């Protein structure tokens, strides 16, 4: 007789993310789910405000990617007011976006996800952190990472007013321009970032790719899903992190659809489950078939690996060479290996660093025409951008006075929520059998989870930075047999 699993609605998940793993009669994993508490009322909070305030409010959803929300909100304001930003403003916004993605990806690789590889998944937890990484690669490198991030962030501080919550975006442009002396100073930072990217990819090569155990983990089955992939591309179908059209490819790599931001509701629908407040977007025209992958399931993925899968290449030469190397190693496009998100992340650092050099070598970035004033009556607009963690959509509706009447956000990580649940389930199934649980379980499950660099705060417009994780193992009667806490 099939056992139906129902999970009670969450009543009080205050501040805890939970992974629930359900066992069947034989003690094998039947399913696993990621549950996240939601912060409700975000839309109500925004309604009735002047729409420009959203560029200040939406970054407060999360203290980690506020820059991305700010830029996406600014692009949405362009759309709401039907105003085109000046070329110089677009270049400056791209500059901020690239600097942010570089420093954020570096933070993730060295301090958060990277330790899984650089130190090793079997290393004791005390070592599986940045101190362990520095121990392995040398203390000089630790200094370089910290220094590189600081210098990249100085670009954002200068143009954005503040680095943690920049405030420079305006409908039709940007509030501050770049003088010549700063252009030259930042050009030096950009060139050093390119060199640093080469170093990071070398680290990945030496420590990860040349190690058979890690390579097996990357290409192995436990961390693999054949999903659709989504990302922004330019007119040549090359990866673009600031603007372009949204392209989706199927699990075989064939283009499924390419659409503009304003049409997102024709293509993306959010599925709701009673046991989690996180929503599960899927491709409308394929349909929701459950937490499964494959060409008949509407589940798709976003973020670094997905972006590289959805595109035909990188715009810049060094990144393109790395892109080709990655796919040659992984056996072609698209790559379905979840752990390869880390590799793709480093390739993106290379791309944005090269683009920073290109933007800053062009003297026209110092032009004073940084804004077109809006003249039309505001009504409705959609903005899209690629956050470090995936495609981000902001959608605002206003009355004719520019007061918000409706807000909808599809936030990066939430696009991956179905895939994250699936990755957790698959990892758990591979590690638990006959009720025997290895202590390495939490880490392997977290490895699946960490590859996505998920931002649960953003995904649920939820409590930022307060997410200790609990993994509960439940038997066939839903009683907890083991609970592992990370808090």
């Amino acid at each position: 007789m099939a056992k139906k699993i129902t999970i009670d609605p969450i009543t009080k998940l205050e501040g805890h993310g939970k992974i629930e793993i359900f066992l069947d009669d034989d003690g094998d994993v039947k399913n696993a789910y990621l549950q996240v508490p939601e912060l409700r009322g975000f839309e109500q909070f925004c309604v009735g405000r002047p729409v420009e305030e959203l560029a200040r409010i939406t970054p407060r959803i999360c203290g980690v990617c506020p820059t991305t929300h700010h830029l996406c909100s600014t692009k949405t304001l362009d759309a709401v007011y039907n105003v085109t930003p000046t070329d110089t403003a677009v270049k400056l916004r791209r500059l901020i976006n690239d600097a942010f993605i570089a420093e954020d990806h570096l933070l993730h690789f060295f301090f958060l996800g990277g330790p899984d590889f650089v130190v090793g998944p079997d290393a004791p937890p005390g070592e599986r952190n940045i101190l362990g990484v520095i121990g392995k690669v040398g203390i000089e490198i630790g200094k370089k990472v910290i220094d590189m991030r600081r210098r990249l962030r100085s670009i954002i501080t200068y143009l954005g007013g503040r680095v943690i919550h920049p405030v420079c975006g305006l409908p039709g442009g940007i509030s501050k321009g770049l003088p010549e002396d700063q252009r030259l100073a930042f050009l030096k930072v950009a060139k050093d970032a390119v060199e640093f990217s080469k170093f990071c990819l070398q680290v990945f090569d030496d420590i990860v790719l040349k190690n058979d155990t890690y390579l097996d983990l990357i290409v192995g089955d436990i961390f693999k899903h054949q999903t659709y992939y989504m990302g922004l591309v330019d007119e040549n179908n090359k990866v673009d992190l600031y603007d372009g059209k949204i392209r989706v490819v199927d699990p075989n790599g064939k283009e499924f659809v390419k659409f503009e931001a304003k049409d997102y509701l024709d293509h993306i629908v959010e599925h709701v489950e009673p046991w989690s407040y996180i929503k599960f977007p899927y491709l409308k025209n394929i349909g929701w078939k459950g937490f499964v992958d494959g060409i008949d399931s509407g589940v798709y993925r976003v973020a670094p690996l997905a972006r590289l899968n959805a595109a035909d290449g990188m715009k810049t030469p060094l990144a393109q060479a790395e892109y080709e190397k990655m796919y040659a190693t992984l056996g072609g496009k698209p790559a379905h290996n979840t752990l390869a998100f880390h590799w793709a992340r480093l390739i993106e650092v290379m791309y944005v660093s090269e683009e920073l050099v290109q933007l800053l070598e062009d003297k026209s970035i110092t032009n004073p025409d940084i804004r077109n004033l809006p003249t039309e009556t505001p009504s409705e607009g959609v903005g899209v951008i690629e956050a470090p963690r995936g495609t981000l959509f902001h959608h605002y509706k206003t009355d004719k006075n520019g007061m918000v009447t409706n807000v909808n956000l599809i936030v990066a990580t939430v696009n991956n929520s179905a895939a994250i649940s699936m990755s957790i389930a698959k990892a758990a199934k591979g590690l638990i059998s006959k009720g025997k649980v290895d202590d390495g379980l939490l880490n392997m499950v977290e490895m699946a989870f960490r590859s996505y660099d998920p931002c649960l705060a953003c995904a649920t417009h939820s409590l930022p930075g307060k997410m200790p994780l609990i993994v509960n193992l439940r038997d066939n009667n839903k009683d907890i047999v083991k609970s592992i806490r990370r808090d």
Partner: protein
Amino acid sequence: MKTLVLGLGNTILTDDGVGIRVAQKIKERCKNVDVSEASAAGFRVIDEIIGYDKLILIDSIKTGKSEPGKLHKFTFEEFKKTRHHAQPHDISLFEAFEIIKQHGDKLPSEIEIYAVEVSDTSTLSETCTMEVEASIPKISQKIIDEQSLFK
């Protein structure tokens, strides 16, 4: 001695923003003091504090054992074994401190941590709950007096 007052929190989450509100009040009253605000944690805050000799941190806390609006004071050592952030995005401020110290950057040698007892940090609102809101002027004055910030 170069001192920085740093308010931490999220100003759209009701009481979660009290750290920043108190810091802003201190700035109003002591124009010559360096005051900063941050709605982030761990590594992202480190850049703000390098170069100062003394750091006064102000944040919110929910011990559940005091009335909302009460001011707690902690030492840095008390937080060494703090809640580990499993949000795979960041490390705790205290771990970040350790890392930076190992790289020879000049971190504040004196750190004072103030935390205001709060009740609601999950409702969206730009103002704090009544008792917490009412406590802001008194708390800021207490910190100013204790730390001799007014010159």
